[in-house]
């Protein structure tokens, strides 16, 4: 299930220097697509709604998937067929006609929202319907846009919607809740944390301990990437994902390491994993005390916290990648009933 509150954080996350000229259109379209899920998406506890944004060289795409009923299927399939045949001028004319005739409703009965999306993306709307039980359909659609205004993308610049559907299915199969691959420099990190916060925040007493541990572990691991990740042209590429597993969640991260961090990192993690449960609280206090008054070192207790609150080991792997070292880290966070 999606809540409306994090659309602005998602938008902030995709702000990228390469795409400055499309920023406005992208934000508009993302909010439009995202809110369509909130408005029309499945209300069931385990609805398979999905929202994603990908940027590939000079093209961007927004992919969305949600369950719809038979009536919506009939409307959308005929409307999309019709709209995809129209050029920019024809879409503009149609948009004006509908506005003037006043035949639109809150639910967008005349397809005004679709026309607007088609106009702003400047490309045909890729779509696909998968039949589900009870005459429902899974509605997948994708908006493609070029980083240059009004430019229609060539076939090889676009990702085929089938490709995104495949990624979406993989994500669903793995119970992935959230996946982000991109820049982990300061501003983006803050947006990521806001998304994490929005999704781990409940006010019930029983969940407080679980929410704290998920959020805190995410904060420390994400900020570790920002601190230790290799920066290329002020861009720190990294991966963060959170998925559901039996009786808990699993958080994992990936990033290239700055040179020289290999042995420090390996020793640091091994040492933390060797401490016994009883030792961890003591080690937290000792380390914090030792590092607190020295501005040249970090607090150094982030991973200790992750390990002591979750009572899990820090899984990690360091590989060679692109003439450098790549660190993958993961931690299981048990959810207590």
């Amino acid at each position, binding site marked *: 299930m999606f809540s409306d509150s994090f659309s602005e954080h998602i938008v902030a996350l995709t702000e990228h220097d390469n795409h400055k000229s499309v920023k406005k259109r992208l934000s508009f379209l993302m909010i439009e697509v995202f809110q369509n899920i909130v408005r029309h998406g499945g209300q069931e506890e385990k609805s398979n709604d999905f929202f994603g944004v990908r940027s590939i060289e000079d093209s961007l795409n927004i992919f969305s998937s949600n369950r719809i009923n038979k009536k919506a299927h009939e409307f959308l399939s005929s409307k999309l067929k019709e709209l995809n045949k129209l050029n920019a001028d024809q879409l503009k004319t149609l948009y004006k006609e509908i506005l003037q005739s006043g035949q639109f409703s809150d639910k967008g009965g005349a397809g005004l929202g679709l026309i607007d999306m088609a106009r702003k993306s400047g490309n045909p709307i890729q779509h696909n319907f998968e039949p589900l039980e009870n005459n429902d359909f899974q509605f997948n659609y994708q908006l493609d846009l070029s980083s240059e205004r009004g430019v229609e993308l060539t076939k090889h610049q676009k990702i085929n919607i089938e490709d995104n559907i495949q990624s979406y299915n993989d994500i669903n199969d793995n119970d992935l809740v959230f996946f982000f691959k991109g820049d982990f420099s300061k501003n983006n990190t803050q947006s990521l944390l*806001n998304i994490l916060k929005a999704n781990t*925040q409940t006010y019930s*007493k029983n969940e*407080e301990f679980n929410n704290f541990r998920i959020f805190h572990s995410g*904060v420390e691991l994400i900020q570790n990437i920002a*601190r230790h990740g290799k920066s290329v042209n002020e861009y720190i590429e990294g991966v963060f994902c959170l998925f559901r597993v039996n009786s808990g969640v699993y958080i994992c991260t990936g990033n290239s390491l700055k040179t020289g961090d290999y042995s420090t990192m390996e020793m640091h993690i091994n040492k933390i994993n060797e401490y016994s449960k009883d030792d961890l609280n003591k080690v937290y206090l000792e380390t914090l005390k030792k590092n607190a008054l020295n501005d040249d070192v970090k*607090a150094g207790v*982030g991973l200790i916290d992750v390990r002591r609150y979750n009572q899990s080991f820090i899984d990690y792997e360091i590989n060679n990648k692109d003439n450098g070292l790549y660190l993958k880290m993961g931690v299981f966070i048990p959810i207590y009933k």
Partner: protein
Amino acid sequence: MADLGDTIIEFNEDKGLLKISGISMMEDALEFYVETKSKIDGFLSSSATNLTIEFELTYFNSSSAKQFIQILTKLEGDKGNAIWKYPKDHSIMHDRGKELEILVDVPFEFIAI
């Protein structure tokens, strides 16, 4: 962009009260608390009054913990005291305050709100 929580710092020099509230999770806490620390130094060197630091946080990360130790250490030697307000039922925030108390020689008062 509005964040889900900001760190709010209020320094009332007349009352000798510094309040840190909200959520403290910035990546570079050192940079964030530079100004606060120099204000504390200024206050302690020019005022005869003791300083009370009141924390009312719903969350803080590890780099903030380090800054809190630095801030609290300034009160050592009978220069002030700390008040740790934590959300009622939030045992972790209570315990995380207790851990700070252990590390500094400053009187702490704990208040559930």
